[in-house]
């Protein structure tokens, strides 16, 4: 068994071998003193850790040995492997130490109550540089809120020092914007003027403000173009007539033309994905889901509940979903999820009697379609005059995203689908 110089609780890193108290060939008992060792702190006799015969003296009198270094070999009864790592002796290469130094592995630290050892010099602390905080930097709170709520901070007005956008500015922005429509609120309070006798002021409700902001945004940000096609919906009208009563009896709800239209629109969006997208500077974002918002006149103003994944429903299914959403909308009971994530908007302006409209695209969508009133008109069909139910559909679209060709392709798709509705058209 190899005997090494043990770490005797001092700050010393090495010892000098003194007089050997046993000779090679001597029998050694456990704890017998083997050799004198001289260190900075203590002069001691090293006791043998094992019983055996001293086979070899490795460190001689006068040698300087680092702690952990080998000094002797004792032959023991069991030929167990001694747990000495022979490479505990660390060679401190001067050129590698640097100002950081190295951690000496095979020497003991200061003993628990012994003093001594080099006093380390504290490195002088650098002065913490106090940099000017540029006020255009967003605080962590502002960044977090913006990210969570999908807000473009460029749109937010800052009221902090030097125009800094504060947390409150962002929360105010969030509260004023509607659920799916991201819009800018620059609410500048005009100085209250003295009330005039010849006019009356209606105070703006939050919804009115919101709608106004959305409209402004739509009008100012999106270059919109418009087209209109006339659709022969005679087949749709007849089909609906034929199932109206049985549907009511079976489902308890009224089936209108809207489910038919929504189905056609959903199908057409699938084939014309540009209409189901959003403009961004980095690229046109095509939305994977077809979430069609239906504009509803609610008591406080226009709301747009959304049919998520409209393409997955049948006409009957759409009727059910829309009945639910529209009722809730009219009663002001929609919750947030029901008005979010719309990708396309449909407005039944025809219900109000309109035969032609130019709707504003619902930012940040790329297109909006209206269904105008169904009117019986004489048209030429197969070179003869026929009385047909005609409905105009009007499409406004973001001209940055698409040109007339794509827009028309969509409209024609809707037209074709609607004109092909007949008595065989599946409801369920």
């Amino acid at each position, binding site marked *: 068994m190899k005997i090494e110089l043990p770490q005797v609780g001092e700050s010393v890193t090495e010892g000098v071998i003194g007089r050997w108290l046993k000779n090679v060939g001597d029998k050694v008992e456990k704890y017998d003193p083997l050799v004198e060792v001289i260190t900075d702190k203590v002069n001691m006799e090293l006791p043998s850790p094992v019983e055996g015969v001293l086979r070899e003296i490795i460190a001689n009198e006068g040698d300087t040995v680092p702690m952990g270094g080998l000094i002797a070999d004792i032959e023991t009864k069991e030929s167990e492997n001694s747990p000495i790592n022979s490479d505990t002796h660390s060679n401190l290469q001067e050129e590698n130490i640097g100002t950081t130094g190295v951690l000496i592995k095979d020497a003991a630290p200061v003993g628990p109550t012994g003093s001594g050892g080099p006093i380390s010099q504290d490195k002088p602390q650098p002065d913490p540089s106090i940099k000017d905080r540029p006020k255009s930097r967003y*605080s*962590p*709170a*502002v*960044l*977090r809120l913006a990210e969570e709520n999908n807000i473009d901070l460029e749109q937010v007005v800052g009221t*902090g*020092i030097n125009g*800094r956008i*504060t*947390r*409150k500015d962002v929360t105010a922005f969030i509260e004023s914007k509607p659920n799916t429509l991201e819009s800018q609120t620059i609410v500048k309070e005009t100085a209250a003027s003295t009330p005039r006798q010849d006019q009356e002021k209606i105070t703006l409700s939050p919804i009115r403000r919101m709608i106004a902001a959305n409209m402004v945004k739509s009008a100012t940000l999106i270059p919109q173009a418009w087209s209109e096609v006339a659709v022969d919906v005679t087949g749709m009208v007849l089909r609906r007539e034929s199932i109206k009563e049985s549907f009511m009896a079976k489902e308890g709800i009224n089936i209108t033309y809207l489910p038919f239209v929504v189905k056609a629109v959903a199908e057409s969006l699938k084939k014309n994905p540009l209409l189901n997208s959003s403009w961004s500077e980095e690229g046109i974002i095509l939305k994977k889901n077809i979430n069609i918002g239906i504009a509803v006149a609610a008591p406080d103003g226009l709301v747009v509940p959304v049919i998520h994944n409209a393409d997955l429903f049948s006409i009957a299914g759409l009727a059910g979903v829309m009945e639910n959403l529209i009722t809730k909308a009219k009663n002001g009971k929609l919750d947030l999820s029901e008005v979010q994530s719309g990708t396309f908007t449909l407005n039944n302006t025809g219900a109000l009697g309109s035969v032609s409209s130019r709707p504003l695209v619902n930012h940040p969508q790329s297109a909006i379609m209206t269904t105008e009133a169904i009117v019986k008109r004489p048209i030429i069909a197969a070179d003869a005059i026929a009385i047909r139910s005609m409905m105009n559909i009007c499409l406004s679209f973001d001209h940055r995203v698409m040109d007339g060709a794509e827009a028309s392709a969509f409209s024609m798709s809707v037209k074709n689908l609607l004109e092909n509705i007949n008595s065989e058209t599946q409801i369920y």
Partner: protein
Amino acid sequence: MPVITVLEAIRDAMREEMRKDERVFVMGEDIGARGGVFLATDGFLSEFGEERVIDTPLAESSIAGIALGSAMSGLRPIAEIEFADFIWPTINQIVGEASKVRYGTEGKLQAPMVLRAPQGGGVRGALYHSQSVEALFAHTPGLKVVTPSTPYDAKGLLKASIRDDDPVIFLEHKRTYRLVKGEVPEEEYTIPIGKADIKKSGDDLSIITYGLMVHHCLEAAQLAASKNISVEVLDLRTVRPLDVESIIGTVEKTGKVLIVYEDNQALGIGSEVSALISEHAFEYLDAPVVRLGGPEVPAMPFSPPLENMFMIDTEKISTAINKLAEY
């Protein structure tokens, strides 16, 4: 509900606990015949007798050491240090020993003692009757450090401290002794050590504070309300352990935080609170964390204008609130 002072609340707490539990006793200078220099133990000698109300020699280190020995032997001493300015000799017995009793014996021994002392300034106490001492004790795991601001809190927390199985340093702001009155129910109650309390709710800005400063912060918050700044005031009540949940909660709510404390600012309680906030509530910060603490002089001077320079008052807090609200 009865309205009493902080001092009366402290006296009631000790009296009630001594009546309840015969292991509880009080020791300190002048606490017996004189009833304590602030009358905190007034009447105790005649009610509980000399054995449980011990007038000690003038020897702070052994007041703490003897209390510690008796606590380890099964009693529940409440040791008083007459003024926190004289608490320094007890550091050896309290920080050095009491905090490590449980840990150093692997739980075989415990030190259920309370060391209470009046601290703080604004009473013309000068360098040696005005010091705040919580920071050095609060740095030590194994100790608990309580700093109440109201009579309700003082009573509930002192009872809890007496019943606690660990050493508690209970620091009472001497200026609140007679100047702060509040409602205190007659029914039995305690307040858990380590729970902060929202003394005033608000949305725009949070103040985190403790001790006498709580009251100045509330005054400043009221002034701020008239400027439409809605300030929330969180009273830490305990500075070791800190109520991290409440600290983070108020920051998440308002995004702006001002930490107010009378003790010297550097390396005080506010430093730790600030570090916790930046570690755990970084994404909620809308402004840098601001500390308003005592100045870089060793202790509070005597002459009024000099004392006022040291003490934080409502005006100084208001200025800080306005600056932070503006950011």
